[in-house]
């Protein structure tokens, strides 16, 4: 019995091996013919590669390595811009941009950290040009100093003359190319003449209780900006960009102002409510439950353009204004293609690129928009991009949110 089993096993394994060998040998023979064909193919490709390399050398294109980070819509627009730069722009024959994109989230810190590490290690040629938000720019400057960036020579970027907006930090080292800001979104049907100043806004709130809402700070940038500027309007302008803990003691006046206007906010079921997230206040506005709310300009305009919200919703800025941010490009000194980087910078502030960003993400153009097709985005022309109010209070924002939750959010 046992013998039978063993012999059966042996037989099976022998057959399997034979089959494998058979297959293997036939495969080898097949390959023999295939290999010959392949080698000629390979020769052809090398020739072709060489040909293209030769032609590339003749045309003199060199690679520019671009680093950027952000959410997925930012990735999409960057891919589109890079593609356009590489094929259609006046620089296409000289430079080819290679995009290295990191989706925001856990990787976002890594991009600036990676840049800082490369600069410290003096690693040439990886970071030719880098896209940075206002916050990231200040982080980079504090990590490696603005002296590790190339001081920009505007004569190398003809289009820079049209851009009036200046970065608040590292002004001579960063080229802003798009911006966004928190604005007041309002339903023009209900509010024919929107307030122009904070005082007028408060007057309006008192006259129309329950028709204004801002989202709870910490749940979205619009509410953050509204609550923070409300408090910081009582402080000197320099406080807005300081993370010094001494300013915390001076918040009282602003918080009592927020407590004062609390009673005029949106109500549901008989109590005051601050919805969570920017989108929630925009939904309330769209549904006609409120007439005005702070929100991001790009968010409102792109949703209006896509038909997600009513056409009657318009945007306006009040004085002192709500805060925004500028997105900038910088060239690290470790770049080994500075001219290529300048070329891409120049492209990004060209009318063509600016219009692409406007249409795709409602990014506020920083160039003269009179020659652009602004259909659907006319409101942007009323915003003064040269005077974006920037805010970065660092870790104080955590304390700020906690205090807001316990003092304002809990009034009920």
């Amino acid at each position, binding site marked *: 019995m046992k013998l039978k089993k063993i012999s059966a096993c042996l037989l099976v394994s022998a057959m399997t091996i034979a089959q494998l060998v058979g297959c293997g040998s036939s495969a080898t023979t097949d390959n023999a013919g295939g290999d010959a064909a392949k080698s000629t193919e390979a020769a052809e490709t090398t020739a072709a590669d060489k040909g293209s390399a030769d032609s590339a050398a003749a045309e003199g294109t060199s690679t520019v390595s671009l680093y950027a980070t952000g959410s997925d819509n930012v990735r999409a627009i960057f891919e589109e811009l890079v593609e356009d730069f590489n094929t259609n722009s006046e620089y296409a024959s000289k430079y080819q941009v290679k995009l290295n994109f990191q989706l925001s989230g856990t990787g976002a810190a890594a991009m600036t950290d990676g840049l800082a590490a490369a600069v410290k290690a003096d690693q040439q040629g990886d970071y030719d040009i880098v896209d940075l938000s206002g916050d990231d720019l200040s982080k980079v400057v504090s990590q490696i100093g603005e002296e590790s960036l190339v001081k920009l020579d505007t004569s190398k970027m003809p289009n820079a003359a049209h851009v009036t907006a200046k970065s608040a930090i590292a002004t001579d080292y960063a080229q802003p190319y798009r911006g966004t800001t928190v604005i007041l979104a309002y339903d023009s049907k209900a509010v024919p003449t929107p307030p122009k100043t904070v005082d007028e806004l408060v007057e309006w709130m008192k006259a129309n209780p329950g028709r204004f809402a801002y989202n709870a700070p910490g749940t979205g940038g619009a509410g953050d900006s509204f609550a923070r500027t409300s408090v910081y309007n009582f402080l000197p302008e320099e406080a807005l960009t300081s993370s010094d803990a001494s300013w915390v003691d001076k918040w009282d006046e602003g918080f009592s102002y927020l407590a004062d206007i609390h009673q005029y906010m949106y109500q*549901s*079921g*008989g*109590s005051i409510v601050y*919805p969570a997230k920017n989108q*929630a206040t925009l939904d309330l506005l769209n549904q*006609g*439950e409120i007439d005005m709310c702070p929100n991001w300009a790009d968010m409102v305009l792109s949703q209006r353009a896509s038909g997600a919200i009513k056409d009657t919703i318009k945007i306006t800025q009040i004085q002192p204004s709500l805060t925004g941010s500028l997105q900038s490009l910088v060239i690290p000194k470790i770049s080994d293609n500075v001219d290529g980087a300048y070329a891409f910078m120049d492209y990004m502030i060209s009318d063509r690129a600016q219009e692409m960003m406007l249409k795709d993400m409602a990014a506020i153009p920083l160039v003269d928009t009179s020659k652009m097709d602004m259909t659907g985005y006319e409101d942007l022309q009323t915003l003064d991009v040269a005077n974006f109010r920037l805010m970065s209070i660092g870790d104080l924002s955590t304390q700020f949110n906690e205090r807001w939750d316990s003092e304002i959010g*809990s009034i009920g």
Partner: protein
Amino acid sequence: MSKTLKTNLVAYALVFPAFLVVMLTVAYPIISAVIQSFQDENTGAFTLDNYLYFFTDKAQVKNILYTLYVVVVTVLVALVVAYLLALYLRFVKSKIAKTIGTLYLLPRFVPAMCAVFAMITIIRDSGVINRFGLMAGQDVKLGLMYHASGMIVMNLWFNIPFAALMITAGLGAIPDSIIEGARDVGASKLKVFTSMILPLSFKDVIIAGTFVFMSNVGSFTTPYLMGGNAPKMLGIALFDQFNKYLAYNRSAALSVIMFLICSVSAGVYIYTNLKEKEWEA
């Protein structure tokens, strides 16, 4: 190698991956959270402050009571409605009952986020109900949004099908024969219900209740989108501590508190199960 040892080794090898996963993803985080909850944020020294904060800070005490209120109301209403539904499905043999029997599980297959937004669209002050009201000349403002009542409505939407499923299974296990037997000897319908059906299905009701309770204590999506600013459900309070205030030790303490609240319900569950074992023995 003896045969039993071999079998044992194989058994251990089979269990080991699962054991490892549980240890790494359940046991380890729980232990480290408990340790962290007793540590001072800055010095790491032993302290009870993280817990004291949640039981002394007025807003936090309110949050805990508010959560218990929402959860207990959800459990009670869900059980009553689910029980009635289950009774109907078990004892009424009609086409409508059959259709309901297949449809009532549908909410379980709708992604939570979609369900919450659908509910918001319907019950908000400018929602579907309001619009129908306006057509009839009535400005109906339910005022459910950003209040406990709105969240409870949403929780019921999620939990009634689940509770009904469990209770229906329990009721299905009661044989028709004993009910017919009792009826034959002259028991009234009410008597059959109070002394047979209810006691026989009570265990399932309790178990359904414990599940509904536990799944709602830590709920996040519904209160985040439908809840107000204060008081908050504990899931949101925990999110605030962790993401907004970056108070990791307090977050750990709140996690432990929520764990303890849930373990009361887990205790009830285990007790109910053990009791049945006794009865079987």
